[in-house]
């Protein structure tokens, strides 16, 4: 039954992704045609887009963990009931959040705009997930592979940072904008780090299974990279708030920590040739193809992240579309590609043969459409961001004039975004259909 709950998480994650991309396309069109679809104005469509895409990332990662632990790690879950409660809480809270956005009931802050009371079931669901994960892991002797460390770290830090992001409810934090913004972005920065732990852990797990090379998850280098990632999760968040007037040591320390990512970049460059050979050899394998795409996007985004973490550059790029490029490149190019690889790995297992030939071709087209459009999307945002950064620094144009000048880039960006949605539909719909049918069969088999 737990295996099936894992599949249900992934199915609901795919629904969230498709609706998230739909609302993303709507809000994109509203960005350039403000009166487009008046029934759902931008201040409602944007949070719908963001929350649903974030829900996809968490749900697909969590579903994978529920599926992999008993199936591959030889670790039957401590409780089979908790994942079902977790799923029910996820669906129930998700529906309430969507309704609250559509009704225009806000009250929270960016990314968690829903009324704060809805944070309570989210926290409860993660506590249940955490209890189940760590109680299950007690049965596992040392050494844990690195992905298990990453999953555990991701679960703990999600709970911690999500709770921290609600400190604004206390007047001590709310009544000082410097404190409030700093704490908000401290929590958000680390929260992104926590989901990266879940997603990158999944990537290492899938890579280990596809390649059959167990050293990937046990080597000293993997753990060094994990600790480097953890250090950045904990201390590297302040590049979001260089211009907020908090104590200078906060930003200088974050600057130093962010530069340690050069070590990760160095490792990627060192392994470049080997990675390329491996990619060419296995590109025909669907799961591997998505992992290769994620690798390319890791490289692109890491270079951008390092550049915009330098305060002297960040003050010009901050608050421009370059930040959006970084966020979108990471969530679509890295997280979504890895999670799709995980989904196709699971599909291959539950069906025994994977996706049929006809759908395989559709997915291959979808893959190229989504990634090509993402590249155009990314470059347009960078160009728009450079323009906005320069005009803001010059301080000669009004905001409207500035936006008018960068509208051509934003127009292409919006249509490239719709292209990403089209590509994702071609990838996700066949996967969704296959998984939906198979999850029903798994249920029947488990009942027998």
């Amino acid at each position, binding site marked *: 039954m737990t295996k099936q709950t894992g599949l249900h998480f992934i199915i609901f994650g795919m629904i969230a992704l498709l609706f998230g991309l739909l609302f993303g396309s709507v809000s994109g069109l509203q*960005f350039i045609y*403000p009166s487009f679809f008046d029934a759902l104005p*931008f*201040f*409602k469509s*944007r*949070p719908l887009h963001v929350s649903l895409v974030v829900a996809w990332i968490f749900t697909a990662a969590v579903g994978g963990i529920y599926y992999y632990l008993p199936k591959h790690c030889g670790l039957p879950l401590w409780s089979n009931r908790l994942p079902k409660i977790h799923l029910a809480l996820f669906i129930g809270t998700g529906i309430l959040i969507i309704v609250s956005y559509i009704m225009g009931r*806000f*009250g929270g*802050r*960016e990314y968690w*705009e829903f009324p704060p009371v809805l944070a309570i079931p989210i926290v409860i669901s993660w506590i249940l997930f955490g209890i189940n994960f760590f109680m299950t892991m007690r049965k596992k002797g040392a*050494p844990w592979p690195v992905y298990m*460390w990453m999953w555990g770290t991701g679960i703990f830090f999600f709970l911690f940072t999500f709770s921290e992001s609600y*400190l604004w409810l206390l007047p001590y934090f*709310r*009544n*000082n*904008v*410097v*404190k409030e*913004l*700093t*704490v*908000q*972005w*401290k929590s958000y920065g680390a929260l992104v780090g926590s989901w990266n732990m879940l997603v990158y852990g999944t990537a290492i797990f899938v890579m280990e299974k596809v390649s059959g090379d167990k050293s990937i998850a*046990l*080597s*000293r280098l993997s*753990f060094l990279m994990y*600790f480097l990632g*953890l*250090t950045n999760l904990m201390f590297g968040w302040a590049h*979001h*708030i*260089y*211009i*907020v*007037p*908090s*104590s*200078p040591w*906060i*930003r200088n320390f974050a*600057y130093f920590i962010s530069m340690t990512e050069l070590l990760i970049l160095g490792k990627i460059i060192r392994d470049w040739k080997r990675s390329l050979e491996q990619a060419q050899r296995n590109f025909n394998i669907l799961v591997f193809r998505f992992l290769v795409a994620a690798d390319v996007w890791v490289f692109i985004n890491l270079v951008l992240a390092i550049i915009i973490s330098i*305060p*002297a*550059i*960040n*003050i*010009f790029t*901050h*608050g421009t579309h370059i930040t*959006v490029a970084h966020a979108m490149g990471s969530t679509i190019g890295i997280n979504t590609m890895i999670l799709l690889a995980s989904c196709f790995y699971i599909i291959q297992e539950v069906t025994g043969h994977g996706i049929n030939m006809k759908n395989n071709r559709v997915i291959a087209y979808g893959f190229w459409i989504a990634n090509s459009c993402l590249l155009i999307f990314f470059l347009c945002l960078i160009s728009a961001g450079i323009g906005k*950064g320069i005009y*803001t*620094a010059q*301080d000669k144009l009004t*905001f409207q004039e500035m936006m008018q000048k960068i509208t051509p880039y934003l127009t292409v960006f919006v249509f490239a975004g719709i292209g990403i949605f089209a590509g994702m539909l071609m990838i996700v719909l066949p996967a969704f259909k296959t998984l939906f049918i198979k999850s029903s069969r798994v249920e029947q088999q488990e009942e027998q």
Partner: protein
Amino acid sequence: MKPVKQMSTPLKRLLFWSLFVSFFIYTAVVLTKGTDNDKGKDFLTEEAKQGKLLYQKYNCTACHQLYGLGGYMGPDLTNTISAAGKGEQFAKAILMGGTQKMPNFHLPEAEINALVAYLNYVDKTGVSNPRHFKINNDGTVEEERIMTND
């Protein structure tokens, strides 16, 4: 096949717990001393506190930024009150009538005043335009408040 070089479990635990403890000490300092600086605290009236909650209630952050954090549809509002050609009356007029891109929320006067009071408070806490920062040779930056009220 070459044996894999592994990190010992005690070393992993040591590294993890060292980072973990450091993180909590660091968090405590950030949440207290590191963010105590509030140059605008004299402007934080009860009305401004109310305005902060209204800013969230109407999801202003979907379109607007404070210190470059928030949405991209509308302008950054950090220094709207002290910016040349803007100010409180300008902000009130926008809030009352909306614009081509911003809907008219039909806000009551008390709420408009509260939102403006909040923006006035934020304005006094610092600056968001990169022109107001000094760039050092090592890539770090320092705020140099050269605000203009013309």
